[in-house]
C-alpha cells in the first residue's frame, strides 16, 4: 500500500502528461501554465510554512548538547558541539546543513549472544544522504545554463567537471550516476530493512519515485530521446523573461521531465521535503548552550500558582521552632 499507491500516482501522472502533450497538444498548459503555477505554489507555500513556524516562539533554550560545555578556563570546551556564541552556532549549523554532522554519528546497534550489545559505526545512510543532496544541488546549478545567456563561467565549469570522464556522447554526468545510486540506496533500505519499512508512509516513497522520474526522464532526454536543447533554452528564457513562447517540436520527453519537476516543487511546501527549511529552525540545533550565562526570555511566560514560604512556615512553624530552625514570624 505504502509503495503501490505513490507508484500508481506517478504512472497516472505520466499518462496525463504524455496524453496531454502527444494527443491533446496542451504544450501551452504543460510548458507555460503549470510551470508558472508550480513556481507560484512553491514560493508562496515555502514562505507560508517558514512564517508559520517562525510565528510560534521559542519559549525555552533547549539545545541538544553534544560536546563539553564551556565552564572552567582550564577545561577545553567543544565549541562546535556545545556552541557558546552565535558564531559557534553558525558553525554548528553549517556543519549540520552542509555535512550532515548528526547523521555522521549514526551507529547500528545489535544484540549478540553473551549478551553483548554492540554499537557499530554506520555511515551508509550519511553517505547516501549527503551524496544525494550534494548531487541534487550540483544538478540544479548545472541547469542554470538553460536560464542564463550567456552561460556564466561558473556554470560552465560545473558542467565540465561533471562530465570529466567523458563517457559517451553527450558525456555521462557524474552527478546523475551518484544521485541514482544514492536514491536507489535510500529506496532499498526503506524496503529491505524491516523497521524502516514499518515506519515508512506513502509520503516517504512518493518523493523518491518523483525524483527518480525526473532524473530518469532527464537522462533519457540527454542520452536517448534527444531533444533540441536550443529550443528548450528558448522556452526557458522566455519563461524567465515572462514572455512565454512555446517553440515547435521539443519532444514529449521534455514535457514529462518538466511536469515532474513542477510536481516536485509544488508538492514541496506541503511535505516532509520542508525539512530543507525546518532544519534551520530546529531549536535543539540553532541555539547556543550558554543558558546560565545569558538569560533567555519566554514571550508568553505567565504567573503560576506557587506555595509561598509564608504559607509553608504557617503550616510548619511550631515544628520548626521545636527543632530550632529559624523562622520569619515568631
Amino acid at each position, binding site marked *: 500500500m505504502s509503495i503501490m*499507491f505513490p507508484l500508481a500516482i506517478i504512472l497516472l501522472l505520466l499518462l496525463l502528461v504524455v496524453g496531454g502533450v502527444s494527443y491533446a497538444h496542451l504544450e501551452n498548459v504543460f510548458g507555460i501554465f503549470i510551470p508558472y503555477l508550480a513556481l507560484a505554489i512553491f514560493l508562496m507555500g515555502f514562505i507560508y*510554512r517558514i512564517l508559520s*513556524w517562525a510565528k*510560534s*516562539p*521559542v*519559549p525555552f*533554550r*533547549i539545545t*541538544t*548538547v*553534544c560536546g*563539553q560545555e564551556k565552564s*572552567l578556563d582550564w*577545561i577545553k570546551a*567543544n565549541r562546535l*558541539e556545545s556552541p557558546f556564541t552565535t558564531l559557534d552556532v553558525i558553525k554548528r549549523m553549517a556543519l549540520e546543513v552542509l555535512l550532515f554532522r*548528526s*547523521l555522521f*554519528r*549514526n*551507529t547500528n546497534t545489535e*544484540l549478540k549472544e553473551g549478551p*553483548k*550489545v554492540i*554499537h557499530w559505526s554506520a555511515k551508509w*545512510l550519511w553517505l547516501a544522504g549527503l551524496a544525494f543532496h550534494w548531487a541534487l544541488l550540483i544538478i540544479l546549478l548545472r541547469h542554470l545554463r538553460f536560464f542564463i545567456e550567456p552561460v556564466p563561467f561558473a556554470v560552465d565549469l560545473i558542467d565540465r567537471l561533471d562530465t570529466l570522464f567523458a563517457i559517451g556522447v553527450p558525456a555521462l554526468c557524474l552527478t546523475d550516476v551518484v544521485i541514482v545510486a544514492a536514491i536507489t540506496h535510500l529506496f532499498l*533500505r526503506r524496503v529491505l530493512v*524491516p*523497521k524502516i519499512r514499518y*515506519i*515508512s*508512509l506513502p*509520503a516517504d516513497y512518493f518523493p523518491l519515485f518523483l525524483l527518480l522520474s525526473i532524473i530518469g526522464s532527464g537522462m533519457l532526454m540527454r542520452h536517448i530521446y534527444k531533444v533540441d536543447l536550443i529550443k528548450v533554452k528558448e522556452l526557458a528564457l522566455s519563461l524567465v523573461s515572462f514572455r512565454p513562447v512555446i517553440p515547435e517540436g521539443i519532444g514529449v520527453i521534455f514535457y514529462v521531465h518538466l511536469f515532474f519537476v513542477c510536481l516536485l516543487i509544488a508538492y514541496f511546501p*506541503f511535505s*516532509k521535503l520542508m*525539512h530543507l527549511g*525546518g*532544519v534551520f529552525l*530546529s*531549536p*535543539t*540545533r540553532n541555539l547556543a*548552550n*550558554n*543558558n*546560565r*550565562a*545569558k*538569560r533567555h526570555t*519566554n514571550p*508568553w511566560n505567565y504567573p*503560576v*500558582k506557587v506555595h509561598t514560604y509564608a504559607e509553608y512556615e504557617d503550616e*510548619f512553624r511550631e*515544628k*520548626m521552632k521545636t*527543632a*530550632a*530552625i529559624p523562622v520569619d514570624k515568631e
Partner: protein
Amino acid sequence: MSELAGVPKPEELLKIDYQPPRKGWMDTPVNFKPGTYCYPAASKNHKILDLPFPREWSPTEKDWKLPENWKEIVLNGIAERLSKYRSFKVFMDICVRCGACADKCHFFLGSGDPKNMPVLRAELLRSIYRKEFTAAGKVLGKLAGARELTPAVIKEWFYYFYQCTECRRCSVFCPYGIDTAEITMIGRELLYLLGLGINWALEPAAKCFMTGNHLGIQPHTLKDTLDFFADDLEDITGVRVDIPINKKGADILFVTPSGDYFADPGTYTCMGYLALFHELGLNYTWSTYASEGGNFGLFTSHEMIKRLNAKIYAEAKRLGVKWILGGECGHMWRVIHQYMDTMNGPADFLEEPVSPITGTKFENAKATKMVHIMEFTADLIKHNKLKLDPSRNDKLKVTFHDSCNPARAMGIFEEPRYVIKNVCKHFYDMPENTIKEKTFCCAGGAGLGNDENMEMRLRGGLPRGNAVKYVQEKHKVNRLACMCAIDRATLVPLCDYWAPGVQVTGIHEMLANALVMKGEKERETDLRGEPLKEVEE
C-alpha cells in the same frame, strides 16, 4: 542475581524480537502488560495541584472515564501548544522517517516494540496532528499518515509517553535535531488535560509543592536526617560538622535532590557534601523550603516545572544569599540550566557566582547564578585547595555513568571525570558509544523509576547494563559512579540484574572518602562503614 517479583530472568528477557509485526502500527492496539506500565496518579494529588478531572481509574479497564468533551480538550490543547512551541510545530512537520533514531532508544533496544522507536513514538501524536491540522491529512487520511483521534489513541499515548525517559539520546542522532523529549512532554501535558497522569511522578510533585521536596520530608525531619548524617560522619572521621539550616546571611544556598537525604547510596553522597563544606569552612545554608533540587514537574507539564522550581529563587532571595550551589542530580540540572532563569528569573537579586575559596568567577553561570557542584569541586581540586588521599578508594575500580540531562542538556563531561580521577586511582570509561553525549539512560528517569514498571526499566536498562558489564569483565570494575539521584536509585537494581557485583556511588561520596580533614582520626572505614581495604576472604 536479584529476585525481582514478576520480572523474567535475564535469559528470558533477552529473547527480544526486533522484527516488527506484519500488521501496520496503526492497527496494532496497545497491550497493558503488567511490569511495563505505571500506575495512575491518585486523585488527591490532582486535587492538591489543582489539576483537572481528578478521579480513580485504571489503565487496564476499558473505560478510562474521559471527560465528555475529551476530544475537543485534546485538539484545543494541541492547537495551543503548536502556537506556543516552535519545537513542537517544527518537529510535527519535518521528520523524514530516515530511521536514524530507531535503535538509539534504550526502550526499543530492550523491548523490540516498534512503537518505542523514537520516530514512531512521535508518529503516535503526529498522525493526529496530520488528521486535524493539515490539509493532506484531512483529505488523504491514512495515505498521508493520518488517523482518527479515538480513546484507543489516548491509551496508546499513555502507554508510550510513559515509556520514554525524555533522555534525548535520539535527538543527538537526528539530522534535524528532533527531540522526542519535547514530544513526550507535550504528549503528557495533553494527557493531564484529561486527568491522566502517573502517581510516581505526580505524588512527588504534590509533596514538593506542599513540603518543599518530593519525599514530603518536613522541616524538623530534614534537620534530624542531616544531624544523623553528622553523627555517622563523626563516627567515621572524628570530625563534627556543622549543619546550617535556613540561615539568613549565608553566602551560598545549597540545593540538592531529596533522594540524597533518603536512601542509600544517595545518603553517602549527602554526607560527602557535608564533609566537604565543613572542611572548606563554607558560609552556606541548607533550606527546608527549597529542599528539593529535582523537579518532577519536568515529567508532568511545563507549568508544573515553573511552579515547583519557583521555590529556589524565592528562598535565595528570602535568605539573602549571594548565589546558589546545586548538588549531584540529573533532571534537576536540565531544569536549572535550560528552564529556571527563563521561567522564574531574572535573578538580579543575586551576585555573579565567585568561589569564596579560590576566587574563580563562574562566568558560565553569571545570569542564572547557580553553579554545579562538579564545577565547584573540580575548581577546588585544580587550585589544590583540598588535601586528598585517593588510596583510601583503592578497593574501588570505578566507571562513570553520564546522566542523560547533565550530559545532553549541559555538556558537563570533563568536570566529573576530573574529580573522580583525583579521588580514586582506578578509573575506566565505558565504550565510547555509551558515554558522554551518547550515554544510555538508566531507564528509570522521567517518572518511570517505580517498581510496577520494573520489567520495562530492566529492558530499557539493557544497553547501559551491558556497557557496565563490559568494563566489569575487562577491568574488574566494581563501582559505577554517577551524579544523579534518580540514577543512584535506579542503577542499583539495573546493575544487580545486568552486571551483578557492581555497586553504585555518588561522586562526593568518593571525594569524602579521600578527603583528608583537619583534625580527623585515622580512617578505618569508608562512608558506608565498610573497611577501607578489601578484606581477604
